[in-house]
């Protein structure tokens, strides 16, 4: 036994696979390095406060405030979660507790396929069906936070459903049996036993859905209207960080303008890392 661990061919292979495994670290490090170094020009010449706390975005006049887009991202993400989280968690409970076998199979596969639909296809659907419908009902252009929220709700649904089902399935079956044997109805078991027991898992599912919503780009860009104004109206054209990057990058010459778009990517990068750390904290608590 000792021999085979020491055999030199084997340790070569081990080193080689370790290098492959450490590529994830290398990738993260390189992404941070390049996004930060490309952001530096805007951060130093315009200043962090003028970028983060100003709503004025006029690259022609040297104004690079991204607050309006930050608000757009926050509001569309919240909107997407308000639609997607109850629907996703509800569907997960349906799949785990309520659905007859065959129906559950259909819904589960449907949700899996929904996850695979390319975001440009969902965006095109939103642009040609949802936006005109909203325009008709609300007498507006139809573009804006409402349209983006619905689109994001659809896009976070599979993430939240799949992860919620996993966390419900990982609960010990005795929990449910014990509750039922005490005479509890299914709904009482779900509400009093299953949801509290799976709370951390459902929270993690929602946070990961949130990450998806913050980073979603193409579908949002197609329905949000892409105006560079701060708005709290649900049906006025506005932008998110991601949609702004896509809208402006094609025309931005190298320089402060382009660099300011990298600052937005840096903000997205920091958001994503914060979410991952939050998830670690939530699931660690569960482990205790």
């Amino acid at each position, binding site marked *: 036994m000792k021999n085979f661990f020491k055999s030199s061919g*084997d340790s070569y292979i081990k080193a080689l696979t370790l290098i492959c495994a450490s590529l994830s670290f290398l990738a993260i490090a390189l992404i941070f390095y390049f996004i930060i170094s490309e952001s530096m020009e805007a951060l130093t010449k315009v200043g962090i406060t003028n970028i983060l706390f100003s709503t004025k975005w006029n690259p022609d006049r040297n104004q690079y405030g991204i607050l309006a887009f930050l608000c757009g991202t926050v509001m569309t993400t919240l909107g997407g979660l308000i639609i997607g989280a109850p629907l996703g968690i*509800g569907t997960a409970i349906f799949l785990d507790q309520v659905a007859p076998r065959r129906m559950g199979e259909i819904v589960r596969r449907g949700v*899996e396929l929904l996850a695979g639909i390319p975001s*440009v296809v969902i965006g095109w659907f939103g642009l040609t069906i949802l936006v005109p419908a909203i325009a008709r009902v609300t007498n507006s252009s139809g573009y804006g936070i409402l349209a983006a929220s619905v689109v994001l709700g659809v896009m976070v649904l599979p993430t939240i459903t799949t992860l919620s089902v996993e966390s419900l399935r990982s609960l010990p079956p005795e929990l449910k049996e014990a509750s039922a044997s005490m005479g509890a109805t299914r*709904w009482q078991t779900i509400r009093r036993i299953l949801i509290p027991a799976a709370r951390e898992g459902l929270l993690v599912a929602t946070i990961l859905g949130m990450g998806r919503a913050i980073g979603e780009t193409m579908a949002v860009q197609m329905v949000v209207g892409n105006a560079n104004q701060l708005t709290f109206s649900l049906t006025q054209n506005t932008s998110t960080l991601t949609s702004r990057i896509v809208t402006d990058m094609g025309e931005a010459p190298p320089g402060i303008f382009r660099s300011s778009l990298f600052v937005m990517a840096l903000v*997205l*990068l920091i958001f994503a890392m914060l979410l991952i750390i939050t998830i670690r904290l939530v699931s660690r608590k569960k482990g205790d």
Partner: protein
Amino acid sequence: MKATRVDRIATFFFWILGMISVGILFIIVGEIFARGLFIALKPSFFLGKPEAMKEGGGILPMIVSSIYLAVLTLLISLPLSLGAAIYLAEYSRGGKITRFIRFCADSLSSLPSIVFGLFGLAIFVVRLGWGYCLISGAFTLALLNLPTLMRSAEESLKSVPKTYREASLSLGASRWTTVRQVVVPSSLPGIITGTVLSIGRIMGESAALIFTTGTFIRKIPLNPFQTAAPLAVNIWYTQSEALVPDYRNIVNGGAAFLLLMVLVVNLVARYIGKFYRRRKGLS
């Protein structure tokens, strides 16, 4: 009595939610196909050359770009992710390094694809000077897909029973021989399923590619250093620029074709998984 009535209302409510979720899929797929499938399946469309200004263009170079890109991406990411998975499943013994690698992979998989796009632009297109081309896009997507491929390969490797390894090792095979000749072959169906699923993701990806591969071409790209326009990216470009008079038709047809490709790829992946499970059940 009241509790049972509440229970019945709740049951009804969960049924509604489940039906809405699956209904969304049917509505989107139905609408996209109803509008675009008859355009998408016309040979003059999916085998046709795109037009920059006139109407009547096709999407063949875009379809070729998408497939070419998927092949290149997998050529890069498959060996790397398999290597990483072998380390995590076969060689590592837990510990700090493994936990750190997992943390990095989790972080990588949670980054928005637009961030990968800008990173790819900064490093491959500009710094390395490759320009907008297939290979810039392929490297970008290889990084994007690395964590998912790694995870699915690792899970397939781990699902191979311990006894297989012990049997091989007891015959005097080295660990690497065991991995190469016993573990990887036994986990191949799982690895293939994961790979096919990632082909679907690559074909649907657009945000990471707009600034790395290019958005419009008229000729089929042959050299990987040539500018390309994967279908998903081109759909976005066509609807956003609206340069051709029949852009709505092109986008309807392109979206239907893209959706068809992705659905077929997903069904193939599922079929492979099912086939494997059935065979395993028999043996």
